[in-house]
Every structure is written in C-alpha cells, then in structure tokens.
C-alpha cells in the first residue's frame, strides 16, 4: 500500500506551526503595543547650529553655567559636593557625574537638556514651569553671549573630556544612564554604587540603610521605586528595552521615567550590560547549542541507519 507517512508529517507539522503562530507571534502582536525604533535619531531635537569651543565651554560649565553646583566632573578635578543620599534628598535623584557624559549622551540631547531639561527629558507632563512645577535641574539661560554658541561650547567641552565613545563600557553606560534610579542586584549594583564586600555585618547593614534612604528619596521623586532591572532582558526583551530607553512615553504615556538621551551605541551597551546580568550564559548557550545540534543530527543519522538495517528483513 501507498506510504502515507509524508502526508501525515505534513499535516502534523502544519497544525503545529499554525497553533504556534496563533499563540505566539500573532497573539503577542495583539497583546503588546508595537513601538518602532527611531534608531536614536531624536528627530524632535534641533541639531547644533554652531561649532563649539571646548575651552570656552569649560569656563561656562565650571563658571557661569553653574553645572558644577550640582554635578561632579571627577575627571577634571571636580568632586561631588555631597554624597548620593544627600544629593537625592536635595534633588530627588543623584545628579550624574559629567566626566563621560559627552560620549554616552547624544549631542543634540545634551544641548537641549542644558537649556530646557523637562523638554529634553520628556517629563513636561510632570514639570510644567507655568504651573510652578520646576524641574530640579535649573535651565541655563545664557551667560550674556550667543546662547546657541554657549551651549555648543559646553557640549564640546563635555565631549573633549569624555573617553572615546568606543571606550565606553557596557557597565559605564548602564551606571551613568540608568544606575542612579535602577538597581541591578544580580550585578551587585545599587542606586548609590556597587555594593562593596564588607568584613563586618554592621558595615554591610549601614550600607544597606544608606541604600534604603536613597530609595526613599527616589520613591518620593518618581512616584514609585524604579524596578531592579536584573531580569529585564528576559522579561522585556531587547526590542522593548531599546525603544523604551529611546522614548519611554511612546510605550507608557505619562510615565515618570525620563528620556535619558543616550546615543545608539550607548543604548546598545546598556542592553549588553543588562544581558550580562539577566542572560549571563547566552554565549555559552549559543556555543553549546551548536555542538548539541551537531550531536543530535549524527544521532538521528545513526538511528535511521539502524532502523534501515533492522527493517531490511521485515519488508
């Protein structure tokens, strides 16, 4: 009689794939909002019109711009005025050190955040100056000269002191852009820094209390404590994280999370750091997977040959 096995196989595979397609790709496309990536172009922000002068920028950042009133620039000998907990008590969140800001954040974003923080950060729904809701970062109104030139100078200065963009590590990118709000406990990261190994429990507890105090201020500022991102690479996936970083409002309108304005490259590094935390063994998985697949194919070939040999006398 005719061999029906190929037809049966086609039927089984077709129904399996149909069911898979319905409950996975199709259902998830209905369940979740799809946000298209804009490749971190920040098209809503004006490009810098002027060429900046780093030396002039340094004077502004350290002087009339008053950036260093709140921000440290460790690299250029400007330490933080207060520790993270005290800073969070004053501003809600610890203002970032600006040493490598020039490489981590997009130039257009930096220019806009200097003159209009709530706009660049996309938190105008929360900080509306007209209603007296001031963003904790005071806008720079100019030092008397051409504002556009001054801003370009400041950005040029930040870029001149930063490490080269290619030298920004995934850890640096995460800690600077995300780590002051989001703990990453699987990488031992708290909002006030990497938790050191303490010899005495008393010291460890004292550190934990500082973290809790910081989190209290942060919670008051943000409305809720921003989540620990350790497993976000598995719970949200790369595309979601990337588009969320690019524009949180596109996913979650009204969220208190600001647009942080990272470059495409820095965003990529942030995600890599999150993958190191939550999908640590991904490279091992890929390499072991390849070997197991080769083994499985060889096993199947031997199984097929064995069957043919055994069944030789049965037909």
């Amino acid at each position, binding site marked *: 009689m005719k061999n029906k*096995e190929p037809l049966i196989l086609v039927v089984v595979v077709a129904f399996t794939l149909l069911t898979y397609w319905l409950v996975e790709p199709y259902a998830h496309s209905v369940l979740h909002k799809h946000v298209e990536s804009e490749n971190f172009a920040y098209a809503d922000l004006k490009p810098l019109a002027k060429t900046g002068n780093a030396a002039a920028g340094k004077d502004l950042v350290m002087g009339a711009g008053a950036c260093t009133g709140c921000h440290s620039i460790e690299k250029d000998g400007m330490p933080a005025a207060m520790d993270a907990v005290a800073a969070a008590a004053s501003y809600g969140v610890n203002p970032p050190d600006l040493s490598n800001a020039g490489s981590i954040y997009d130039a257009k974003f930096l220019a806009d955040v200097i003159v209009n923080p709530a706009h660049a950060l996309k938190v105008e729904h929360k900080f509306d100056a007209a209603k007296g809701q001031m963003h904790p970062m005071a806008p720079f109104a100019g030092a008397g000269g051409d504002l556009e030139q001054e801003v370009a100078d400041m950005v040029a200065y930040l870029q001149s002191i930063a490490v080269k963009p290619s030298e920004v590590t995934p850890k640096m990118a995460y800690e600077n852009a995300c780590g002051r709000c989001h703990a990453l406990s699987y990488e031992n990261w708290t909002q006030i820094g990497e938790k050191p190994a303490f010899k005495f429990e008393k010291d460890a507890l004292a550190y934990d209390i500082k973290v809790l105090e910081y989190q209290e201020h942060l919670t008051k500022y943000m409305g809720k404590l921003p989540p620990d991102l350790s497993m976000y690479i598995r719970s949200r996936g790369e595309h979601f994280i990337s588009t969320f970083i690019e524009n949180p409002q596109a996913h979650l309108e009204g969220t208190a999370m600001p647009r942080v304005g990272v470059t495409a490259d820095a965003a990529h590094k942030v995600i890599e750091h999150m993958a190191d935390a939550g999908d640590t063994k991904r490279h091992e998985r890929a390499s072991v997977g390849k070997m197991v697949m080769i083994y499985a194919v060889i096993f199947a070939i031997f199984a097929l040959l064995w069957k043919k040999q055994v069944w030789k006398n049965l037909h």
Partner: protein
Amino acid sequence: MAHFTKATSVKDWLNQRLAIETVERVMASEYWIPKNINFLWAMGMVLAITFALLLVSGIFLLMYYQPDVKDAFYSVNYTIMRDVDYGWLWRHIHGVAASVVFLIIYIHMFTGIYYGSYKKGREMIWISGMLLFVAFSAEAFTGYMLPWGQMSYWAGMVITNIFALGDLHLDGLVEWIRGDYVPAQAFLTRFFMLHVVLIPLAIIGLIGLHFAALRIPHVNNQDGEEIDFDAEAKKYLAGDTAGSKVIRFANDFMSKDMMVVGFFLIFFFYLVFFNYGFALDPVNFDPADGLKTPAHIYPEWYFLWSYEILRPFSVNIGLLAFGFAQVIFVLLPWLDRSPNAVPASRRGVFKIWFWVLLADMIVLTAMGKLPPEGIFSTIGLVAALGFILLWVALPFITMNEKKV
C-alpha cells in the same frame, strides 16, 4: 523453594533468580507489534524520552531550587541560571520539555482518536492515558508555580480561585488549597511537594498502568485490521519475517521508535537553545508581586482551549462548560457508539467530526490567549459552543455508522 544449581555464567546466575530471559522474551523480543504502523506510533516512545528528560533535569534543578517565597525567584534566576555550571541548560531543558511534552501528548491523543484506538478492548488504554493527561496537567501547573514569578503567582491566584466563582462559592476550599487567603509560603511549599513527589509518583504509576493496558488488546494499527497475533507471531518465528503482519517490540519496533526519537531530538534541542520563549514566558521573569496584576494573565498554551471554554459564558455556565470539557474526553469510548475500530477516513461523518474538533480546539487555543474583546470574544463563544455541540452530537453521529 525453587531448585538452584551452580551458575555457569553471570547471565545464568541472574536467570535462575530473576528469569531475565523470560522477561526479555515477554517484554521485548516476543512482544508483538503490528507491522502496518506509521511514525505516529512512536509518540509513546517520544513521550517516554521527554519524560526522562524532565525527570533528570528536574533532579538537577531540585539540588539548587529553594521553595521559599523570598528565595525561590533568586534561586532559579540567579543561582541556577548564573552560578551553577550548566544550570541554565537544565532549566531550559526542563521548561521546554514541559511544554513540548504536551504537544506530543496532543498528537498522541488525536492519533488515538483518529485510528479508533480506544475501542474494542482498548478502553483502559484510553482511560489510563487520560488519567496521565490529568496528572501531567497537574504536574505542569504545580511546576509553573515554583519560579515564583508574576505569572506563577497570578496563575496560582486565578486558577485556585475557580472554586470560589459564581454559585460554587467554595471559599473555604480555596483557602484550604492555598493554606492561606492568598498564594504565599504555605501555597508554594505544598505545590513544591506535589510537583516533586506526589504527582511524579502518580505519573510513574500511571505510565505502568498505561503500558499494562496495552498488553492484552495489543497495539492498534493504521488500517484497523484485526490481526491474529498468535498466528502471525508463529509465522515470524518460523522465519517469514517479511510475510508476517507482526514485528518484535525490540529491536524491530524499537529501531523505528528511535529513528523518530532521533528526529524529534533535533527539533527539541533546537527549541531548547534557540527558540525557548514560547515555553519560558517573559512575564514570569518578573518576581511575584501581589500588588501588581499583569496586564494579561493567560495559562500556558496547552491549557488555553479549556480556559477559553470557561471564559466566554456567564460565570455559572462557564463553570459548567469548563467542568464538561475536563471530563468529556474520558468518556469518548462510550460516546462513540460505532462498532468500527478503523481510521476516521473510512468512517463517514466521524471523519468530519474529527477534523472539526481539531480545528475547533486550535481556534479555542488561539482565542484563549487573545484578549476577550470584540471579534475575539465572539469567535471564542462560537468555538466553545461548537466544542460542546460536537461532543453532544457524537453519539448520534456514530450510532448509525455503517459497519465496515
């Protein structure tokens, strides 16, 4: 007492005490299987292998898992996934096998329905198989609680709450199952116990029963042919292996089984390493939070069809429909009134019934995951009504079937 002589070999020594040659003959070389079978007959072996993968990976996971609401999530996602060498591999194998085992169970079940393998003395095979389905479902559900992620917690909440719905109102029973008002420590520990001890024991026992149930009625074949196993076995043993309608379990049947297992393992390991998202739901990588309900709560794909039978109706009717869906498959040998134990393709209206049932369950599965809004609600309602009607109609369809 039996008479023992000095053993001439290890085999002889064992033979005198355990009758291993007889056991081998009865269980393997003279356990006769029909020759006219296709690869669907290998699903039993595929299931046995998948169960073995679950058991072995589960044992490794058990060495590091902590059944404590404070530590469970961490022990799974940090200790097992990061710290323990190849812990991630055991978890992926366990998670993917738990999902794939249901795919094979459904293929196995629908094969049985298509070829009428629940009739004429094979009723116990069907019943023990359905009991295995129930046990595997319980095993899957209890296991799903253990990582103590968002979907664990909320699925535990929603499913145990079923008993408190509508006029059932068995709030006391729900509390008794949970050991608390909400899923918490008592709940996690008892589900852990069920998952690693009680249900696996039940499954192993039922697998024994399922195999035993096959022995007397013999395995069915793809042509619905009634085979005289004794006569065909004699023919085989006399040397006419090509002419005989039966084959040995080992190595004849086994070699074909292992060939199918070989191809299955390629598919399986591809999923384990490269496409595991369907089995390890992203939502469950968020730790359980009783104050934050996920936007969409849905069961794993293999429960979706029965979940969708619960959903489109008002609460009380939904519960009745859900209860109906849980037990109706078990009754199949008696609802099918036809005397024919042949493939559906030769059974007229039953053939249509079979394919409509399969399509209906796929529709229910899809609608069970999609949000119950608009057109999806309507399709879900129609499919759920369709499911009930199909089963109610089955005795009438099969009653007048012509004998083939």
